[in-house]
């Protein structure tokens, strides 16, 4: 019996498990292979939908599903979080348990979460539209009461997930207040530690004129140090100060706590992997995908998806006596809504720099299609579509 353990029931873990369950269905039926996901979360949220909930008042229930309904047949779920992994001896332990669960293959897909400890005062005043559906809904209710004032949006620290989302929040707030007829009463300022409004120059060239046209201010190279909630000020490490009435900052993110201090992660706990086949650099049969890795690419669902397909293909190939030949291309495809039903995409690979794509209604519609097919995609229903769409970037073989 080959035991495959997956830590994390987010997009990466579910897509990987679905692909494995499909490719190894015969072996699972014959009890030659088992696939088990470890995660105590009972629900999963469609994270790109937080923006719609926070800034357009979409019902949060529309972006939440029970995990049990997202798991493909043949995959077992253990509703417990992992607190220890021993890659050398190939076992893991869940929180509070001494029982050792052995594995032949391991996939770590534990994502990332806000790290408010890095920036004092930020949690207290921040309207975090970026982290869960419930809080995003509360934010919409708070926005509905804003009639005037100084709004500061942007990036509070690195790394963070969903690179375009801070820019999207600026555009969507601008749209909201224009539609309310209140835009002249509201000042919107975007802050970023990068020297451009969007870090990649090609996309910066696309969105900088939109910032000017919509009168959204920007302060670049701003390294947020702390937030003084009494004075309503954001202070940079270099001593600059920005006043705010309302704060919508994307916090820096951290890895799962059990990964910190392990020999297979970097000093911040991000797992060190081979950028092509995602194996953990010192262990050939253990892998990490998605936000969990230390790869210098976007922390976004599309990465977790494409990396999961590569890992699942390689594990299934090996179990079937074939060569591991699939390689991740580094492909990213993050939509960036620019407001008023238009969007651009941040598209690139390890070998191709980010393209310059002008915002369009067609791009916005493509983003909406992804929302519609997301839940089905976790079951692997649309791999034919993703393969067609990404073409040679889907994977290398």
């Amino acid at each position, binding site marked *: 019996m080959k035991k495959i353990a997956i830590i994390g029931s987010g997009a990466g873990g579910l897509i990987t498990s679905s692909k494995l369950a499909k490719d190894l269905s015969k072996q699972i039926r014959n009890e030659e292979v088992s696939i088990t996901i470890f995660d105590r979360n009972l629900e999963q949220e469609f994270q790109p939908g937080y923006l719609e909930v926070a800034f357009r008042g979409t019902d949060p229930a529309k972006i939440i599903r029970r995990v049990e309904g997202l798991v493909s047949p043949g995959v077992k779920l253990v509703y417990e979080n992992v607190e220890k992994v021993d890659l050398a001896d190939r076992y893991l332990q869940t929180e509070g348990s001494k029982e050792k669960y052995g594995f032949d293959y391991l996939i770590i897909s534990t994502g990332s979460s806000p790290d408010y400890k890095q920036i004092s005062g930020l949690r207290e005043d921040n309207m975090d539209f970026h982290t869960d559906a419930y809080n995003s809904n509360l934010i919409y209710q708070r926005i509905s009461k804003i009639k005037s004032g100084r709004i500061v949006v942007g990036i509070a620290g690195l790394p963070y997930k969903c690179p375009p989302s801070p820019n999207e929040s600026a555009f969507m707030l601008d749209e909201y207040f224009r539609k309310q007829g209140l835009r002249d009463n509201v000042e919107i300022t975007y802050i970023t530690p990068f020297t451009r409004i969007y870090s990649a120059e090609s996309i910066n060239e696309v969105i900088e004129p939109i910032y000017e046209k919509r009168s959204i201010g920007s302060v670049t190279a701003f390294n947020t140090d702390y937030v003084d909630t009494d004075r309503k000020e954001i202070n940079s490490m270099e001593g600059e100060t920005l006043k705010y009435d309302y704060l919508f900052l994307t916090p820096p993110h951290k890895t799962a706590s059990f990964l910190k201090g392990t020999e297979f992660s970097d000093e911040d706990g991000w797992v060190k992997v081979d950028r092509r086949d995602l194996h953990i650099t010192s262990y050939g049969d253990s892998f990490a995908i998605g936000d969990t890795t230390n790869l*210098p690419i976007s922390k976004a669902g599309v990465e977790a998806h494409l990396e999961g397909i590569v890992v699942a293909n390689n594990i299934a190939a090996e179990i079937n006596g074939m060569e591991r030949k699939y390689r991740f291309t580094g492909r990213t495809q993050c939509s960036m809504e620019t407001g008023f039903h238009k969007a651009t995409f941040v598209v690139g690979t390890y070998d191709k720099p*980010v393209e310059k794509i002008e915002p369009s209604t067609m791009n916005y519609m493509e983003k909406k299609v992804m929302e519609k097919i997301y839940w089905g995609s976790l079951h692997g229903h649309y791999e034919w579509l993703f393969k067609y769409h990404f073409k040679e970037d889907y994977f290398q073989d």
Partner: protein
Amino acid sequence: MATYNVDSRGTACPGPITDLIRAYRKAQNGDEIVLVANDPGAVPDSKAWCERTRNQFMGSKEADRIFEITIKVTGKKA
């Protein structure tokens, strides 16, 4: 005074500058950050970042298409 060695080889924009900013958060005035990258854009990006944040761009060296950029942290408010 500490030296932070940051290896950004194999990454393109914004990888090196992201790594630089993450190291900068941990550093103190007087520390040095040595950024190694093979993206030629890392040199002008680092220079521009230093100018904007009042940190000191000490220089860059190139060998076999690998760039070694040295930055002295001077911009942090005391």
